[in-house]
């Protein structure tokens, strides 16, 4: 039925059929406070009327900027109820990015979470000719702002109720007039290469893949989900909006970003979706806690982790798990795995997904070994999120599963993955050239990923097509594959692998400040600042060990030979990673060209001056000397292997 409906129509349906059940739940003042489907609709309707009173109508755009807050969800649906388009924006976007998106999308109403976001928008006001109304959720610190176009969320709803008194059933009529093929969402892609592009999606685009996914994964109305990822991420629009409205489960909002860990545990969600970064961080945090635990706990954890991973390996290879190992695993379930799942908040999780980028096989296996049903999904913003998911019986770290019902996948001659799906976008807003480049003549989306379909019919993604390169000797190289292996180490925060048209593989490593900081503490290694820590020879040795471990699992030709420990973290404010934390490889290669050259030259040291951007948008130069280090795997051995 979703194919014939719009998002607000589904909201109205839920308000009528399951009106008393909790639609949303927000932790506020220390208590989980539910909002029923009926109230959800009433809040949306009142805000919608308020927007109408301000002249907002069909085709107008409304942006939300902030953390996951119920009112920001109300606002998006209110705009869509009137035939408008929601344009969610990353809450940590700096002023220039924000200005670009708001201006490009011609947003007329912005709903901001708090004073911080309102201040950002007010500072850009002169550059935003289309902006007519700024609405805020949390009014703290804003009482004395007097701008004619600034209003509180409650005030807009109040104005809406007045408007509604003179215009009975105004929103109901507008919702009924909505059509599934109308635009519902502009999802600005974070873009690893260029300016963000506005992906135009219709109600049907969002709902049809959601429907196929719900059917394939048996997502039901009793699920609990914690929405803790940016509202601007397509995964959030898919799960916390489209799927949520379609299936009618409960969507929960954390108290604030810092409390997510505790909120997860209190809530015990039954489903979850997060990008690789989340799982990597989760594993790192767990490793740190295990290392800090008492001798007994630490050893138990390490021992049973080994047991779980060996058992997982057997299952992965299709061998039977030996009885002894099976027994130990049962014991481990009681002593370690169950409690760990509880700590992570996945005790009740039926299934959790990783998507948005490939997750390293080691991290993936770890969670599965501990009894968490982690599965890979694959998709793209241009596909409204999803196009494939692993089936329960066929989960392995290398594939991204089967294509969903109603969708097709095909591999182009050059190895690029092409997808045809009802989720395919309507084009990039005001960028018809880019749209033409993204689609084939027959309506297939060029995903930009290199991949193939294995003998079981599952899709395998190798890497971004343009990143797959060859070493100087012709060995093919998938940088992300190596990076993900390296990032399995808790000490490695980010890694960028180089090697295309070069004689060997080299890597720039950004250490994880928390784990390396703790490690330094345990080693009684004194340091003054993060920069100082990064430049310590002991840290370099630590990373060299991690690289050796990673090298052991790589074919000889793809082994890392030289590396540099960078003295800063990669930061989205410096354009080095996207807001969804994908490395912008080209940009990094350009910015750190001197470092890359040094790694392939004979220089033991390199002078680096890098521009860094503070959170308030100011810039500063960071000057330092970085040491280029060799991995002492002797060249003869490599030659012998080759």
């Amino acid at each position, binding site marked *: 039925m979703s194919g014939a409906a719009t998002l607000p129509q589904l909201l109205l349906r839920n308000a009528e059929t399951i009106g008393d059940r909790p639609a949303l739940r927000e932790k506020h003042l220390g208590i989980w406070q539910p909002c029923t489907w009926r109230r959800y609709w009433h809040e949306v309707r009142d805000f919608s009327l308020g927007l109408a009173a301000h002249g907002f109508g069909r085709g107008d755009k409304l942006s939300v900027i902030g953390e996951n807050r119920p009112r920001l969800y109300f606002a998006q649906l209110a705009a869509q109820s009137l035939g408008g388009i929601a344009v969610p924006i990353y809450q940590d976007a700096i002023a220039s990015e924000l200005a670009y998106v708001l201006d490009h999308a011609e947003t007329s109403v912005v709903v901001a979470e708090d004073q911080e976001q309102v*201040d950002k928008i007010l500072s850009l006001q002169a550059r935003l000719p289309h902006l007519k109304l700024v609405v805020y959720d949390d009014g703290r610190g804003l009482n004395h702002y007097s701008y004619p176009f600034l209003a509180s969320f409650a005030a807009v709803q109040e104005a809406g109720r007045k408007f509604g008194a003179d215009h009975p059933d105004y929103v109901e009529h507008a919702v009924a007039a909505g059509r599934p093929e109308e635009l519902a969402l502009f999802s600005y892609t974070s873009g690893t290469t260029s300016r963000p592009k506005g992906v135009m999606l219709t109600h049907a685009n969002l709902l049809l893949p959601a429907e196929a996914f719900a059917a394939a994964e048996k997502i039901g109305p009793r699920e609990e989900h914690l929405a803790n990822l940016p509202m601007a991420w397509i995964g959030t629009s898919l799960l916390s909006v489209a799927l949520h409205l379609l299936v009618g489960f409960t969507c929960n909002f954390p108290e604030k970003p*810092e409390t997510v860990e505790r909120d997860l545990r209190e809530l015990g969600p039954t489903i979850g979706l997060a990008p690789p970064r989340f799982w990597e961080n989760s594993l790192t945090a767990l490793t740190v806690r295990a290392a800090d635990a008492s001798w007994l706990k630490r050893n138990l954890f390490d021992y049973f982790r080994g047991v779980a991973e060996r058992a997982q390996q057997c299952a992965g290879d299709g061998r039977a798990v030996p009885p002894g190992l099976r027994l130990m695993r049962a014991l481990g379930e009681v002593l370690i795995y169950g409690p760990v799942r509880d700590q992570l908040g996945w005790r009740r999780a039926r299934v959790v997904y990783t998507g948005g980028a490939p997750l390293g096989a080691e991290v993936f296996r770890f969670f599965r070994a501990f009894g968490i049903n982690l599965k890979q999904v694959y998709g793209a913003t241009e596909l409204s999120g999803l196009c494939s998911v692993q089936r329960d019986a066929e989960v392995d770290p290398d594939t991204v599963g089967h294509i969903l019902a109603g969708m097709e996948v095909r591999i182009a001659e050059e190895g690029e993955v092409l997808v045809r799906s009802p989720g395919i976008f309507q084009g990039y807003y005001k960028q018809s050239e880019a749209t033409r480049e993204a689609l084939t003549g027959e309506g297939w989306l060029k995903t930009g990923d290199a991949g193939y379909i294995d003998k079981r019919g599952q899709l395998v993604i190798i890497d971004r097509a343009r990143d797959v390169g060859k070493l100087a000797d012709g060995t093919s190289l998938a940088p992300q594959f190596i990076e993900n292996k390296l990032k399995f180490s808790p000490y490695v925060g980010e890694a960028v692998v180089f090697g295309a048209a070069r004689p060997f593989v080299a890597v720039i490593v950004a250490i994880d400040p928390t784990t390396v900081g703790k490690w330094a503490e345990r080693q009684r290694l004194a340091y003054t600042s993060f920069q100082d820590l990064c430049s310590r020879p002991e840290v370099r040795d630590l990373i060299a060990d991690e690289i050796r471990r990673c090298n052991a699992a790589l074919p000889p030709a793809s082994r890392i030979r030289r590396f540099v420990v960078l003295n800063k973290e990669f930061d989205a404010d410096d354009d080095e990673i996207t807001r969804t934390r994908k490395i912008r490889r080209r940009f990094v290669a350009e910015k750190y060209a001197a470092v890359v050259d040094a790694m392939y030259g004979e220089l033991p040291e390199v002078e680096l001056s890098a521009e860094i951007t503070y959170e*308030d948008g100011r810039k500063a130069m960071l000057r330092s000397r970085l040491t280029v280090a060799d991995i002492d795997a002797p060249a003869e051995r490599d030659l012998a292997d080759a």
Partner: protein
Amino acid sequence: MRARFEQGGIAWPMAIEATHSLPAEAHLAVTQVSKRFGGVRAVEDVSITVSRGEIASVIGPNGAGKTSLLNMISGFYKPDSGSIVFDGADITRDRPSEIAARGIARTFQNIALFGGMTVLDNVMLGRHVRMKSGILSSIVYWGLAQREEVAHRARAEELIDFLGLQDLRRQQTAALAYGLRKRVELARALALDPKILLLDEPMGGMNSEEKEDMARYILDVNEQWGTTVILIEHDMAVVMDISDRVAVLDRGRKIAEGTPAEVQQNPEVMRAYLGGAGPEAGVGA
């Protein structure tokens, strides 16, 4: 560091203008108070009048008598002479607990929290002054006592939300970073629902980001509940940014008083406090 603070891009002047427009009335009148310790004249003949809803700062070099003055207002010291009148009532001789109950709360220069207790418990403790049920009914914890506890918890949660301490609710305060402990102390003082908040160097020992946060919280408290704030602070940039009025003490005496701009221009202040240089030389904490 200071440069960053000043360029923070925060729309502060608006909030300050608004507080200026409030009607001026003597909320707290300190009249010619003096205090000596042995032969040391800590405070001598100091008079300060604070209006409702104002942010008033007291600055001065080390040993100028700022904390002694605050201690007299909060009842920790009794002045040798002079009077302190709060909302028309003479509180000069009142005990600290009585003054707290009247609605004057404070924080300390050296954080005074219960390290072994959680953030929530520390904040709840601040509510005790406002609790009415007796020991017996509190033990039975039924009826009034329970309703009271729930109401107080709700208020404590509001403050935790206001000061962004949600993730630390269940953490022991001893384990928290310095800047966070200062924030918890502010939450506990606010738990009294004070009419006047006395802050003794709330930004001492903080980095610029923490200072910026704390300044924002002070302004927010002032704006949200109309709480009068009396602030002792070393960081000149902060004081000049957020105060409605500034009084300058030097060796126990008040040598100047006025708006931040006036005080900055005052030649005596420059000589005594800023060491003869212009105000831009600043005295960073």
